[in-house]
């Protein structure tokens, strides 16, 4: 197992090098001049040149690249110009915010989507199958920012049940001492239930927004995969042997149907982590997606590079975990390096 993990990580190295080079070149190819942007509203040509010098953008591209890779090797991702902070610190602070939101959204989504998919598959054509179809179609066709705004409008503005959409915590709470960076878990570790409650109530609406969106792929995949498995020989054999329907569905069919669902889950998770920019914007969530987009808008190179690199590493790790999970769920899957 360990040699397998080692091998897999080795294979990831060339792709990471590729990512470093491509992001470096792509960010440089962006139109727009960061020096002019950051020289401020009243800058003269000389002021812009001074800024360019300070930021080392006047050096040849190749020199900038070696400086960048050298810094990377020392764990330095550079400084963001828009927020003024080191990129590594920012990503470390913001990644847990996105991860917490995405994970919770995914958990909620899984809790609804998988039972829904299983039920739809066992009773094709019934009302629950139609319900599944309607929910997933609606979920996937409503853009997240729209769902988010509607939820804010109804539950915050109209009903006042939800707290103000002001990020991870209410204004008057301070973050729990950081252990994992996930406020829910950190608050529990610190036994600070008030903060836990505040963090959870802030999370409900954005997590629900994400859940509604990610419901569709998971439910559809569960349904399709369950249908295929239910039609297979071993399920027929199990049924013929007189096993109870619940044993057949849960023990025999569901476990075998889980592989494609897990694959979909991993894809949905990594997609959401980077792509929930809109949800982050609507709920003022200090996540990694909105960070990257803001940096992109202001041609702030370092955070964009840092973001892409972090995402690439996350994808590599996530794929590895999923592959290991395959082996745990289905002993027939043998991993090759």
């Amino acid at each position, binding site marked *: 197992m360990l040699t397998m993990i080692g091998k897999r990580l080795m294979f990831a190295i060339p792709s990471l090098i590729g990512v470093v080079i491509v992001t470096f070149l792509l960010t440089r190819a962006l*139109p*727009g*001049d*960061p020096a*002019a*942007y*950051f*020289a*401020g509203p*009243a*800058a*003269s*040509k000389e*002021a812009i040149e*001074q*800024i360019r010098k*300070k*930021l080392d953008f006047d050096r040849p591209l190749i020199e900038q690249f070696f400086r960048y890779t050298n810094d990377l090797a020392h764990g330095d991702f550079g400084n*963001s*110009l*828009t*927020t*003024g902070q080191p990129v590594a610190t*920012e990503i470390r602070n913001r990644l847990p915010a996105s991860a917490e939101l995405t994970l*919770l959204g995914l*958990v909620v989504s*899984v*809790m609804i989507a998988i039972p829904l998919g299983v039920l739809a598959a066992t009773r094709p054509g019934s009302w629950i199958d139609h319900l599944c179809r309607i929910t997933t179609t609606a979920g996937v066709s409503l853009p997240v920012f729209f769902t988010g*705004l509607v939820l*804010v*409008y109804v539950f*915050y*503005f109209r009903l*006042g049940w939800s707290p*103000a*959409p*002001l*990020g991870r915590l209410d*204004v*008057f709470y301070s973050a729990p001492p950081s252990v994992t960076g996930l406020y829910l878990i950190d608050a529990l570790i610190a036994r600070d*239930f*008030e903060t*836990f*409650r505040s963090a*959870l109530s802030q999370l409900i609406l954005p997590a629900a927004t994400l859940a509604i969106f990610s419901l569709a792929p998971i439910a559809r995949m569960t349904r399709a995969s369950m249908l295929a498995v239910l039609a297979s020989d071993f399920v027929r054999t199990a049924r013929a042997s007189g096993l109870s329907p619940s044993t057949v569905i849960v023990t025999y069919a569901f*476990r075998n149907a889980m592989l494609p669902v897990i694959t979909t889950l991993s894809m949905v998770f990594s997609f959401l982590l980077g792509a929930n920019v809109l949800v982050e*914007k*609507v*709920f*003022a969530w*200090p996540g990694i997606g*909105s*960070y990257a987009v*803001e940096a992109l808008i*202001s*041609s702030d190179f370092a955070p964009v590079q840092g973001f892409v690199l972090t995402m690439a590493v996350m994808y590599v790790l996530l794929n590895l975990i999923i592959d290991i*999970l395959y082996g*745990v*769920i*289905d002993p027939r899957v043998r991993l090759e390096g």
Partner: protein
Amino acid sequence: MKRRDFLKSVTGVAAGAMVPAPAIWSAAKADARSETLLIVSESGPNNLDIHGVGTNVPGYEVSWNCYDRLISHEMKSGPGGVPYYDRDKFKPELAEDMNVGDMSVTFKLKKKATFHDGAPVTAKDVKWSLDRAVSVGGFPTFQMGAGSLTKPEQFVVVDDNTVRIDFARKDRLTIPDLAVIVPCVVNSELVKKNASEKDPWGLEYTKQQTAGSGAYKVTKWTAGTEVIMERNDAWAGGPLPKVKRVIWRMVPQAGNRRALLERGDADISYDLPNKDFVELKDSGKLNIVSVPYSNGVQYIGMNVKIPPFDNPKVREAVACAIPYQKIMDAVLFGLAKPMFGAAADKATEVAWPQPTKYVTDIARAKALLAEAGHPNGFETTLSFDLGFAGVNEPLCVLVQESLAQIGIKTTINKIPGANWRTELNKKVLPLYTNVFSGWLDYPEYFFIWCYDGKNSIFNTMSYQSKAMDEFIHGAVDAAAVGNTAKYDTDVKGFVDLAFKDIPRIPLYQPYVNVAMQKNVSGYQYWFHRRLDYRALVKA
């Protein structure tokens, strides 16, 4: 891990997530609310020090409230009774006394003034800070230069409590330039301790924390999320502010900022879309303040170096084809001061901005265009900054529609905020809309930037005219020696010429819109258009 264990643990986690959180409340949080001002805005600072590299506009707000200057402005009653800074009246802030001589000005410092760490504010700190402002380069140095403050030798320590500033030349803008945000006084000993050889002015240190003597100090800053500021109870610069704590949260979504205000969760917000402001005003639930930008104009610019805009007749034709009133109604919802349609017999004033005499007159525009040799019009692009798309986009669509009526076919070119300045600098955009406003509220200051032949970045039209330069420099020199008659003639001269040659078409003077809860009062308009927390009161 065994797969059975794994499957069990998965169900375990799922069940755990469903356990409801215990509901425990504390009353202390409610008390904190009444002493705290919650501000929401779209974006936050990227640097707490205005002397830093590329400090953005929200960063100016922090500097204004956390640092002191030698002098500041008095307030007067402005448009609509809103307290408005008085351009001509100065009041001491760190200085207790200002003595203007012929070629220098001397300041005596308040003896009880201290920095946030308790160190006294001395003349040495003042000199170091001003040296820093003229030496770091970029925007701060440039702004100091606008008041002829360019060399460290101009700042002289007389004794521990006295500083003299020598004038490089007679310039009416020198004293006002000492009251803008840039010449703030920094705790030199503290910053020097945290400076390095590579960074002699300690910019890295002051980027992350405030090291001033101002009424507030930043206690927590999470970039892109929030800034928390606490009152400095030992502030010597003026009467103790009423608000104890300011929490400034970034809420990117305009709709949510409005919802926060309407629900009463946020105390103040600005930069809401005009439509929201009008609706909030009508609903009457909030205090809404609208004040025109001082010395600021939104305009349609034409590059006079690019045909056919090199022909004054074409420019005049465009000026006659702009749907001025439609822009006021449909884009701004009335929240702006028109800069067009002055009565034909109205005399030019010694003031800026002032309205042109242009009105929408399609027939005249057509005739002018035919006269200029383009009876069938021409094709061009109309560019705008996407960073301000809320106003710029509908404005450009209206202009596009209207120009089509006289045969000018325009393609709209949306330029992302990051590129806008780069594109302006190249001076290749033929037709565009933009806004300019100067901190120092003097007509000649505006014209030096926007119309002068030295072709600064804000002379986006590349307009160069000998007659114009003569008027501008005449006015600057006349102001320096106090020759009012000559000054008035020259100001009228350059305004008339700008309207006759019309390289840029003034549209309107934009408004600063601020929405506050009913229990919040004390808003003051400043030239920098950011909030001054020191005067705000939350009942």
